[in-house]
């Protein structure tokens, strides 16, 4: 066990319709080797022993890839530190005696389920609107090497494909825009020959669904790019805008 003492101010909300509030919890014996979530585990362990309700928060892989964890810590999605998710944030980033504010993602399209847990089903619905290549899974396709893809295109598509769908971009945006998320998928598939045939429809459908879900507009503030744990670039938003514009003016 370590010897840091912290003062946590955490958002508590019993259910989707309940009124929430910030509550204060002191935590002792925090070691700098702990991850932020392990620090919350300790707090929860303590709460359960006392018969209190532990704090609900989403988490799963705890190695920065599943996109489940989603905390807004001291005003930043996934907390201080760049290119990491909350589960990769370690307590050595904090000092003994610090007060830390922990809140859920805040966006109309991400309603709170309980405490720090939000519903990101809107992202799934955007994917279902067009985030795919329409190919059946028969396996009877052309050889994987039949169509060479230039390394720069392949690398850029990959950069976009690294999006983990965590929603930090939305949480960081003053407009709660999901453009970085949507553009990552549109960009990945539009850069690959397999995704070109339905590129127009994809851009139009995904953007339409995004608007329907109640996400705000992009005003090129760029906070999303800064807070994105995977470093997804704003260039993808530019590409989405081009794809969308072309699709809109050439729509049949």
């Amino acid at each position, binding site marked *: *066990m370590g010897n840091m003492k912290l003062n946590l101010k955490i958002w508590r909300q*019993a*259910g989707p319709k309940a009124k929430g509030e910030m509550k204060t919890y002191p935590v002792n014996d925090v070691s700098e*080797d*702990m*991850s932020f*979530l*392990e620090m919350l*585990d300790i707090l929860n*362990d303590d*709460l*359960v*022993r006392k*018969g209190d309700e*532990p704090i*609900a928060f989403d*988490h*799963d*892989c*705890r*190695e920065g*890839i*599943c*996109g*489940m964890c989603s905390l807004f810590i001291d005003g930043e999605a996934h907390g201080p530190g760049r*290119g990491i998710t909350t589960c*990769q944030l*370690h307590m050595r980033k904090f000092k003994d005696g610090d007060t830390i504010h922990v809140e859920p993602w805040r966006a109309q399209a991400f309603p709170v*389920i309980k405490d720090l847990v939000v*519903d*990101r*089903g809107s*992202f*799934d619905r955007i*994917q*279902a609107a*067009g*985030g*795919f*290549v329409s*190919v*059946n*899974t*028969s*396996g009877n*396709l*052309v*050889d*994987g*090497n039949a169509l*060479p893809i230039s*390394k720069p295109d*392949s690398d850029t598509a*990959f950069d976009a*494909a*690294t999006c983990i*769908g965590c929603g930090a971009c939305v949480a960081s945006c003053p407009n709660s825009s999901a453009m970085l998320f949507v553009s990552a998928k549109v960009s*990945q598939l539009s850069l*690959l020959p*397999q995704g070109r045939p339905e590129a127009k429809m994809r851009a139009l459908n995904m953007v339409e669904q995004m608007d329907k879900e109640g996400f705000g507009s992009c005003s090129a503030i760029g906070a999303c790019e800064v807070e994105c744990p995977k470093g997804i670039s704003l260039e993808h938003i530019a590409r989405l805008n081009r794809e969308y514009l072309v699709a809109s003016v050439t729509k049949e």
Partner: protein
Amino acid sequence: MKLDSKIPEGPIDKKWTDHKDHIRIVAPSNKRRIDIIVVGTGLAGGAAAASLAEMGYNVKAFCFQDSARRAHSIAAQGGINAAKNYQNDGDSTFRLFYDTVKGGDYRSREANVYRLAEVSANIIDQCVAQGVPFARDYGGLLDNRSFGGVQVSRTFYARGQTGQQLLLGAYSALMRQVGKGAVKMYDRHEMLDVVVVDGKARGIIARNLITGEIERHGAHAVLLCTGGYGNVFFLSTNAMGCNVTAAWKAHKRGAYMANPCYTQIHPTCIPVSGTHQSKLTLMSESLRNDGRIWVPKYIEDSKAIREGKKKGNDIAEADRDYYLERRYPAFGNLVPRDVASRAAKERCDAGYGVNKTGEAVYLDFGAAIERYGKLQANIHNMENPSPEKIKEMGTEVISEKYGNLFDMYENIVGENPYMHAMKIYPAVHYTMGGLWVDYNLQTTVPGLFCLGEANFSDHGANRLGASALMQGLADGYFVVPYTVGDYLADDIRTGAIDTKSAAFDEAEKGVTDRINHFLNNKGTKPVDDFHRQLGKVMWEKCGMARNAQGLQEAIVEIRQIREEFWKDVRVTGKGNEFNQELEKAGRVADFLELGELMCKDALERNESCGGHFREEYQTSEGEAMRDDDNFAHAAAWEWTGDPGTSNRHKEEMKFDVVKLTQRSYK
């Protein structure tokens, strides 16, 4: 019940094609009348749900995560094997089959493994067509790398996140069907029982994790694609939510559990740092392509390192023991996982470990950095480059190949791995055991199928690297869509399954009673307390090395923990709300039964094979010693009401093609 593996007749390379050509299929108009439940949306489940919906079945897909895209397949780093022979190094379907059977220490089913190797090439084509961005070379063609236990380069990869990219491919196929209405998606739902009606699996009981509502879902077939049970050890590289509950409920409803003791301990994970630890992080096996594993040659040096008086860099080249290269010259650092893990344990047990706990060895990139640096100098026609320049250029190459892994390491450990050798230690990673299935992936309960890591079939006693992704997708895209049709051909006139039957009543009552027990128990200790205790027993007595005495002790201890758990566990909150403690309680209750069965299985298997190492059965050189005369079989356990009284059934593994030999990587 006699186990019938239903392996088709004929030569091994014709079995699958012949089988597919002769099994029954369901006509498109009839598929619309059939409902299928898929539990789990990882590579196996996501692929199966998408494929079955494309074919025209009505599919309901369930996952406990908030989105199908988050299943733990996503965490696989290194790659996926396929017998494409793009590198022209003599690879073939047969070679992949042979390597996998050998890697599994001759405890897997030949026919299944051959089929896996056969469809491996289709997987790559399929994924490319879906827009999966595999690594490519400057000519625009797909790149490959090597993995442990093989001597060819057949592993396709997407930087250090192959699992995520493949899963997003399957997820996109799944979401396409969700968008069409062909799949109804139930995320944040946990399956808590299988419902068996007149001997056939006809549905599930699931809990809506947001509202706490207990739901009944009927279907003509149920597919479990629910992953492995490594979290029985508490600390593992699995995600926090990974659990055995779905498979265990199926086991209690009559599905046999095969070879539960086969656990894969991955050699390259970040060592445990303290008691607060909630999970362990894997460092991809691909690192062993370039990293060299060593400990100091002299025990005094190890001591000095543990006491913080020396660092790895202080140990001269001549004073380092590259023990894998020493013991296994032919495969060196790329021996299979079980061999590499045991070798690390052997050195650390002997006192050569290099961190405070004495449980770590070095994974060193110094030599690779120098080699790549010199190569770069040659490429750029540099004359007499300085050692610093070489190091700088070599570091760049390593960073491009493994950058994300190095960053992850630095985040967790707080030390720069480009400057100091990584410290690694084995950790629980994968479970080869699982529900027993026949060639059609059907369990011993008709209508209940099991795919991917959750079944036992393809990896024998040890899985080779980059084969889990291959199996998940093979089962989901290319095997079950055919075999399930053969079973469902009898159900075209059945009509929708009635969920108001007695069987559903009984199953739902069982689920509700258990939940109420937890909530009303008012014990004193949180769920994790018991989970930690169980994990400690499992790791110490049913981990990398096992012996009869330890296993017998473990069984007694686990039974005690289980008794204590039911008496003294405290679960806060209510049943009709989002309640993570309640979710955990149900999962740990099942782990507490599984753990005992694993120890029992390990105790009965009087041999060493793959990931199962019994100290009593080893060669004079400390290698695993199999007993093919008595144990060339899968042990399939039948539930009888208590893990202590489970019945052991055997499926003999027949080897018609591969000759059984002592596995050697020397």
